[in-house]
């Protein structure tokens, strides 16, 4: 790995900042234009998913719903795969009795009707999830700043948080672009990304901290660059192993966890990028300003 010896990443920090800022702007733009496809976990509503042994399309399901006059405004999605036919019904919140009626009607009408899942979530739950989530993220943010300030320095904490925000915004932006549904699993993925992003950033910061102790005279930019370059094999190996595992689960793990795995894949990829090209450059930029002010 000889080429890494002279690799100078920090002097090009303006390029990295530009790339990240463009990414953030695009992500936020799509977020504003497309909005997020919030699932029932956040908005309240019902989802019913069936599989059938005979071919059933959404129009047939629509006519069944119209016959019993329940969920006539529902969004219907064909979820057939190689092995069986399937339809997903998304509607505003249905009562248990209504779900029961839909079940009976579907069973009467189509052959081999199997209820795969049915979920009903009231608006209270979505409200709560949002509140709890935001509260937890705020408290966690403060706790991370305190811990990193204590173990490192305040500016390391802020750089870590900015990197984290970068990864989260990017991942949410990708989901806004793809129009994928935001559900509890997505939130779990986002939390995983946060954990991973912090982990990744801290490993590099730790090396910077060590270099600062060992070479007190060297300029900060050089120390930071050394740290990023020296930890590069670790960064690449860790991301490769994780991404390979996630890709395997994405491809073979079935529909239930695909959204989750997609979010993880995007988040981990951007997390690796940002720990190298965002976190340390922010620190260097900060240090430059401090020095310029002196």
């Amino acid at each position, binding site marked *: 790995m000889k080429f890494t010896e002279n690799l100078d990443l920090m002097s090009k920090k303006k390029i990295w900042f530009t790339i990240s800022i463009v990414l953030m702007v695009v992500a936020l733009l799509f977020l504003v234009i497309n909005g997020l496809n919030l699932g029932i976990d956040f908005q309240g509503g019902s989802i019913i998913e069936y599989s059938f042994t005979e071919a059933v399309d959404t129009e047939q399901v629509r006519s069944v719903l119209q016959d019993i006059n329940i969920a006539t405004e529902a969004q219907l999605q064909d979820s057939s795969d190689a092995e069986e036919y399937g339809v997903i019904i998304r509607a505003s919140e249905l009562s248990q009795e209504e779900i029961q009626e839909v079940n009976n009607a579907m069973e009467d009408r189509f052959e081999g009707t199997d209820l795969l899942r049915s979920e009903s979530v009231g608006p209270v739950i979505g409200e709560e999830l949002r509140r709890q989530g935001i509260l937890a993220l705020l408290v966690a943010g403060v706790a991370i700043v305190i811990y990193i300030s204590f173990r490192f320095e305040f500016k390391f904490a802020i750089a870590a948080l900015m990197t984290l925000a970068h990864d989260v915004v990017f991942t949410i932006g990708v989901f806004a672009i793809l129009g994928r549904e935001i559900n509890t699993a997505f939130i779990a993925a986002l939390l995983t990304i946060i954990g991973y992003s912090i982990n990744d950033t801290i490993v590099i910061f730790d090396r910077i901290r060590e270099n600062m102790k060992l070479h007190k005279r060297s300029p900060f930019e050089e120390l930071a660059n050394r740290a990023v370059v020296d930890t590069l094999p670790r960064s690449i190996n860790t991301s490769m192993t994780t991404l390979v595992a996630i890709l395997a*689960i994405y491809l073979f793990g079935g529909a239930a966890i695909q959204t989750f795995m997609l979010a993880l894949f995007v988040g981990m990829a951007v997390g690796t990028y940002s720990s190298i090209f965002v976190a340390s450059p922010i620190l260097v930029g900060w240090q430059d300003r401090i020095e310029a002010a002196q």
Partner: protein
Amino acid sequence: MRYKKKRKIKIGLIVLIIAMAVGLYGYYGINLGLDLEGGSHIVLQAQPTEDRDIDNEVMTGILSVIERRVNQIGLSEPVIQREGSDRIIVELPAVDNPSEAISTIGRTAMLTFRIDGETVMSGENINDARASHDEHGRPVVTFSLNREGAREFENITRRHMGQQMGVYLDEERLTNPTIQAVIRDSGQITGYNSVEEAQEHAILIREGALPVPVEVIESRTVGPTLGAIAIQQSIRAGLLGLLLVAAYIVFYYKFPGLIAAISLIIYGIIFMGTLSGLQAVLTLPGIAGLILSIGMAVDANIIIFERIKDERKSGKTLRAAIDAGFKRAYMTIVDANVTTLITASILAYFTSGAIRGFAVTLIIGIVVSMFNAFFVTKTLIDLSSGTNLLQSASSFGVREG
């Protein structure tokens, strides 16, 4: 000699821990969440009425009525617990007709007898109610009254002889017979289409009404088919993922990579044992936590190996490089893990349901992973440092030049 003795103790300890983990797993097994096993998760919220606020007594009352109903329906291993000040969580195994079971459980089930729309008596003095057939073979519910109820019922039927008396379960009119005789301590409710329907009502009437109505604010049912698919696919994908990770680290780090892979397997066993021992529930978001912690466990090994590699490059002997590598990796791994641990603990404290499941598995995973890196991997590396397996230049990914 002393060094060798210490090492023996360490190996003994690792074997003991593995044995304990396997024992815990064998004894308790892993509790799979509903999303993996199939079943229903229901959150009920008590609704205050004009004359009853929600307090501890009301909640205890609701809890015991719901418990009896669930038991009477004959569902195995239900989980029924209070959450917060006004909620009850019910978890049921996979049943044929989940939404019907859910509506039965959540029904207020206030039985009333009404004449001209006026309630003359309610069902609280009913002793017993059973489904049976009347003389025409039609399904009915037969109920009997306690002494107080019998006296009251006798008065009512005497006073309103010849009038129609409606029998209502909540606002549903079950039957509306004409009073033809004075009735004392038992009666029959007719008008059912099936014995099942009569049985369901018999349970509701016998076990009594809820003190206040409850509302189903969340219900999630996963059919047995989907649960079976989810668990099968997760296991297959998880194993494949682990295999690929192991192949990558063995390819890159050679023999130490193999040690990391073995250490990863031990990690998996200890994790499963801890999860079983704590009786924690493994859900899909929990698997997410598991993946993150596996990632961090692998990462810890990679950080250690990279450090040892650096030390080797600077010309240290293998023994010295291993010691220095572990020492220097120690702080990195602790800082990285503790930061994640803080986040996970805060999540576990502030959230509930799926996200808490994620956080709890992550906490278990991180703690096990740190122990694994500093104790298991260290011991395995020490153990093989005496052999020449680690001596070759390509070990730890050291490249020539």
